[in-house]
């Protein structure tokens, strides 16, 4: 095997050299395998609960009546909120919000029960912390479900007291009830929403920066680039042989994380698995080519890695999961469109939870394909330019190339 490799320069020679190289550089191997898988395991543990339930709030009950007690019971009974403490005054409750112990304060005013039955429409006030937006909204959802339920009981008794039959009164309570259906994620599970999207964006950072690093090592100087070209019997097969080992490893990493998502966390696969696989393959390839392109354009390698980091590490916000792209300004919308991850996540959401019909599934996949073709074309153009420069300077480059190699 070894002998044959040395005899025939070409794609496979560079391929095996790269694998040897990875074996001798445990850091890079760990960075493209253990680091992403370890971070994914960490994130999976963070979100393992899937739903955020029983978020603590504080109650200030100034009435202490049967009604106020039943409201507190109902608020405590909703899945979203838990009444963690009761306080005697507003300042104490405010302090608890400021110290981060609770997410909201429910204030039941004095004479609540008396005023309700006298028809004075007293106000129940819920103060909630929207600095942490999602958490605050969850507590509001709990209180919003509980208090109207308590109010409905009162309205029913007000009506039956007027002599209305119970059934009729019940129908009249909510003249226009909204039957709300959460499409595609009926339980509003954070694992399917957030975790399933964080993992690919993590991989995007690893693939782009690691590719910039590994390609950069071979093209940083003209001398090294020439060696790579000789080994591969041409720059193109050399580049393909250089990238392929990583493609295989990244696909395996993606496979591990998807195996965990689908089998252990039970992420649904309502669409087509093969389409998801194609999208994953194109996504990794486009990220690799982007990294390679950065390495070819920017010297030294450290700059290529830096720019790769600048582009991908803040990318999660631009991909429109937490805050949808629909609401972004033109710059953010445009930058998001240039990230392979944006389209991969679209394809992923289509094929996993949404189960998008086949004929509507192609757009993100075609965009990813366009990225692969476009980046590959740019890499090829850049390689040709570098080669023709090398040929043109052939006579005079001998000395500088040597000195570069020495330094």
């Amino acid at each position, binding site marked *: 095997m070894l002998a044959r490799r040395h005899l025939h320069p070409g794609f496979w020679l560079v391929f095996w050299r790269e694998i040897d190289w990875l074996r001798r550089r445990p850091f890079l191997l760990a*960075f493209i395998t253990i680091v992403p898988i370890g*971070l994914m395991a960490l*994130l999976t*543990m963070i979100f*393992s609960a899937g*739903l955020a*339930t*029983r978020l*603590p709030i504080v109650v200030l009950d100034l009435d202490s009546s049967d009604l106020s007690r039943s409201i507190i019971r109902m608020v405590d009974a909703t899945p979203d909120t838990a009444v963690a403490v009761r306080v005697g005054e507003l300042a104490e409750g405010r302090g608890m919000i*400021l*110290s*981060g112990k609770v997410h909201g304060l429910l204030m039941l005013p004095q004479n609540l029960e008396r005023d309700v039955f006298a*028809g*004075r*429409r007293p*106000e*129940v006030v*819920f*103060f*909630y*912390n*929207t600095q*942490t937006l999602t*958490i*605050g909204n969850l507590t509001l959802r709990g*209180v919003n479900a509980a208090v109207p339920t308590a*109010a409905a009981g009162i*309205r029913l008794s*007000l009506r039956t007291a007027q002599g209305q039959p119970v059934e009729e009164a019940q*129908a009249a*309570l909510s*003249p*226009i009830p*909204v*039957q709300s*259906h959460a*499409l*595609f994620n009926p339980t509003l599970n954070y694992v399917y929403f*957030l975790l399933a999207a*964080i993992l690919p964006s*993590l991989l995007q*950072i690893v693939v782009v*920066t690691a590719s910039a690093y590994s390609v950069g090592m071979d093209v940083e100087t003209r001398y090294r680039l020439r060696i790579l070209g000789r080994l591969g019997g041409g720059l193109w097969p050399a580049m393909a042989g250089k990238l392929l080992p990583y493609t295989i490893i990244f696909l395996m990493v993606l496979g591990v994380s998807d195996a965990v998502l689908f089998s252990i966390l039970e992420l649904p696969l309502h669409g087509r698995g093969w389409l998801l696989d194609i999208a994953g393959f194109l996504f990794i390839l486009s990220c690799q080519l982007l990294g390679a392109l950065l390495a070819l354009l920017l010297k030294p390698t450290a*700059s290529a*890695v*830096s720019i790769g980091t*600048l582009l991908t590490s*803040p990318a999660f*916000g631009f991909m429109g999961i*937490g*805050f*949808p792209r*629909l*609401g972004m*300004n033109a*710059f*953010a919308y445009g930058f998001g469109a240039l990230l392979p991850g944006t389209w991969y996540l679209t394809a992923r959401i289509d094929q996993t939870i*949404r189960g*998008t019909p086949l004929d*509507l599934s192609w757009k993100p996949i075609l965009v990813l394909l366009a990225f692969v073709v476009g980046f590959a074309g740019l890499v090829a153009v850049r390689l040709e330019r570098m080669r023709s420069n090398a040929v043109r300077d052939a006579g005079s480059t001998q000395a500088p190339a040597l000195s570069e190699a020495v330094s």
Partner: protein
Amino acid sequence: MSGLFAVFRSEFRRIFALRPVFSVLIVGSAFYGLFYPQPYLNEALRNVPIAIVDGDGTSVSRELARRIDATSDIAVTMVLPDLVSAEREVFARKIFGILVIPRNFERDLLHGRASPIALYADASYFLVYQRVSGGVAAVARTLGAEVETARLIGIGVDPVLAGAASDPMQLTAVPLFNPQGGYATYVLPGAFVLLLQQILLMGVGLLGTLPGTDPVENATYGPPPGPFATVAGKMLAYLLLEAVILPLYLIALPYFYGLPRLGGVIPVLVFAIPFVLSVSGLGLVVAAIFKRPLPVQLVLATIGMPFFFLAGFAWPTEVIPPAVHEASLLVPSTSAINGFTRLAQLGAPLADVRGEFLMLWELTLFYGGIVWILEVRRRRNARRAAVGVSSREPQIARVV
């Protein structure tokens, strides 16, 4: 003391002299401060497009559609004949919700029966779902209350009482600290702290791995600085740099982006001292682990995002497994994101964040201690290698 000052001065110069470090700490800080907030600057989702499938086609159903369209949350962009064709538009991401008004909607309402409507909202993006379902529910509730009041007045109830009967106990929800529920207001204060940490970690990591990091080699005259002076001098240099960058990030940028804040400047700056010192310590430890600049860059680039989700900001600490949370306290951002947002955004007094404040000092001592021990050991090894095995014992005596 003069050794400490010499280290401080040379390290501070290196920040500006070394190109990669300057790019990360100065150029990087400026870039991220402008680039990172872009997706969130519109603060809220407005006019999320939905479709209406109106099986009733009466004046009341049209009134309902009109009122929904009039909210700032939702825009009715399509009127479609059936649910199947509307679903296709959802799959195509043209619309994000379908409101189905069934036949006889108006008739049931006029007859005093409950007249339900069905909403199908896209929950593959939570913010979209929240907007659409919240907006429709609010309109249906108001319209419903009007209908109910009208009915009660119709059967002879006093108008004042009728109003009370349809809504006997008002629930007033008061959002605190982020009154508009803006997304930038929510994400950016925490994200800025994380960015500060990651940029400083990377800068310190590079300073600790690039040539010239050893002050013993640099000492041109006088005795070389001791291990403590080395560690403390470097940390002070980072503290001085952050004395400029941190206020820009945590005070000037939030002001520039118009984020509401209730806290004063002084508590933030006091809290920042152990934050910067603990991050500097961690950065020096990272440098000692990876030894070369490129690995430092690669690892730190990847590891930032998970730290955000550990801080209990996007995902509540209460539901993070306790062991994971305890371990996450080793990263300064976990305590710092919490502490800074409560001080600056919520206007909490320093006393309310003393847990986080003390934790950051503990981390400073912990990472500073590790770096100090590493520095002592490194010198002992270096000298042993230089002097040879024979002089081993006096060496140890001197270090101890």
